[in-house]
């Protein structure tokens, strides 16, 4: 069960791209160990919201407190937060010029400044966790999509973050590779990691989520535990979206 200590507090968040408002008055609290799954139609602001959490986007208004640190213009804060927040992208974004092992050690060595030998043994540990210990010396281009995404998850884990963000981690994968990634994510959830996942994999969501969030037009229109969210959501738009997705 999640503890009751908030680790991410999003209060009245606004985000503008020029004149376009991508997020409007978004509030959400995530507690330690909690798993939040965000869904909603394309363009509803899901990516923008989680990218604000590690400040790949700067929010325009409201407050955002991550692990006790308020995100603002002080670079030191931002880097401190990013070390605690891992992020997995739809397009993997592995470093193509580095081997799998180097992808995993470059952060710990250069950013965390831990000794190389320790970084390597840590990297091997997390490669085991994502079930590809044998791929350590390959380059990303030599791996399948599912393997690349698992390497990307391991790369984040090597920084030993307290929070993991996933932005549609299985959307770019061939269908037969989706489960190997979801399995790794499920195991991670069971280990007690705090997670925010943007995904339309509703089976996974139903299994691991403590809290479901539905977004539309830059607003959160529904927050509910999965038992309620999947059976009787209050918002009719949310119901329509679920009907549409569960058809497939």
């Amino acid at each position: 069960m999640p503890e009751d200590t908030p680790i991410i507090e999003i209060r009245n968040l606004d985000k503008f791209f020029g004149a376009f408002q991508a997020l409007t008055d978004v509030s959400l609290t995530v507690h330690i160990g909690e798993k939040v799954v965000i869904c909603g139609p394309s363009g509803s602001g899901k990516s923008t919201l989680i990218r604000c959490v590690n400040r790949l986007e700067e929010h325009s208004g409201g407050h955002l407190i991550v692990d006790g640190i308020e995100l603002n213009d002080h670079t030191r804060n931002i880097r401190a937060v990013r070390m605690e927040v891992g992020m997995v992208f739809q397009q993997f974004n592995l470093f193509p010029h580095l081997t799998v092992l180097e992808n995993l050690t470059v952060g710990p060595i250069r950013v965390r400044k831990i000794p190389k030998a320790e970084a390597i043994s840590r990297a091997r540990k997390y490669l085991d966790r994502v079930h590809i210990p044998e791929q350590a010396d390959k380059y990303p281009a030599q791996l399948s999509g599912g393997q690349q995404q698992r390497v990307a998850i391991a790369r984040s884990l090597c920084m030993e973050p307290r929070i993991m963000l996933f932005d549609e981690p299985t959307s770019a994968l061939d269908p037969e590779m989706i489960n190997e990634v979801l399995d790794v994510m499920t195991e991670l959830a069971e280990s007690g990691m705090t997670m925010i996942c943007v995904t339309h994999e509703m089976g996974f969501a139903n299994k691991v989520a403590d809290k479901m969030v539905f977004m539309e037009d830059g607003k959160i229109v529904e927050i509910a535990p999965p038992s309620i969210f999947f059976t009787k959501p209050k918002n009719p738009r949310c119901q329509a979206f679920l009907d549409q997705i569960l058809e497939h």
Partner: protein
Amino acid sequence: MSRHTTTDRPASQPGSTEQMVRQARKLLKSTPMAVLIYLGIMYLILYGCLAGAEAMGYNWQWYRMPDYLFRITDDGFQWGEISIGLVKTIQLSTLSFVLALVIGLIVALLRLSGLVVGTAVAIVFLEFVRNMPLLVLLYIFYYIIGAIFDLDRYSASILCLAVFHAALVSEILRAAINAISVGQWEAARSIGMSTLQCYRYIILPQSIKFMLPPMTGEVVHMVKSSAIVSVIAVAELTTIGRNLISDTYMSFEIWFTIAAVYMVVTLMLSVFVTFMERRYAVTT
């Protein structure tokens, strides 16, 4: 290519005119044919020169040329003037190019920094250098900046060449850096890297393969444009050529030789970089 699709294929039976035209084209594009054409053109040019020289009664003294490359005397082996000039040219170009890389990288990073002041400084620099003939820039460095800061002609030359090429180098670097996808930045940032760390460990190593081809062009360009410092009498290949001619009056032999030496150097550079490109292509 796309025009030769299935629709016009039935028309081209073996032996048809179209087929013959196509074969003729293919033959013209083949390597042996290219070499033949090249040799033919070179023959015409050389023949023209020699016939012209003949007509003006030029006295060829090619037999004296090897001495200016190297001599073996009673004291043993000695490099000739042209070889010494080549070494000077290589030194001058190397120093200038290293400095150009440093200045070019700074200008490129300023331009990419997103800071208003940084971008402004970079753009003023680029526009100043790009709109200035190299010869005028050299005079500015030698007669003005050199006079103010008490620079000798060699340092003024290096600075001038470095600044001139830094503008071009910075554009090459900028294009190569921009060729890396924004996802690489985001991944590097999301594991906590600073901007400097992103460049050093993630972005620049990947940019190298985009830089190599245009950078070779720049090195070749540098070797060639270094000849201009002969106008302020800095000792290098071209200056030495001029001096030799005023001593010996063998202008045809010496300019031909100097041209050949420049070509050998720049061709070798191209071969070297092709090799480097292959190596980098494998590891990335």
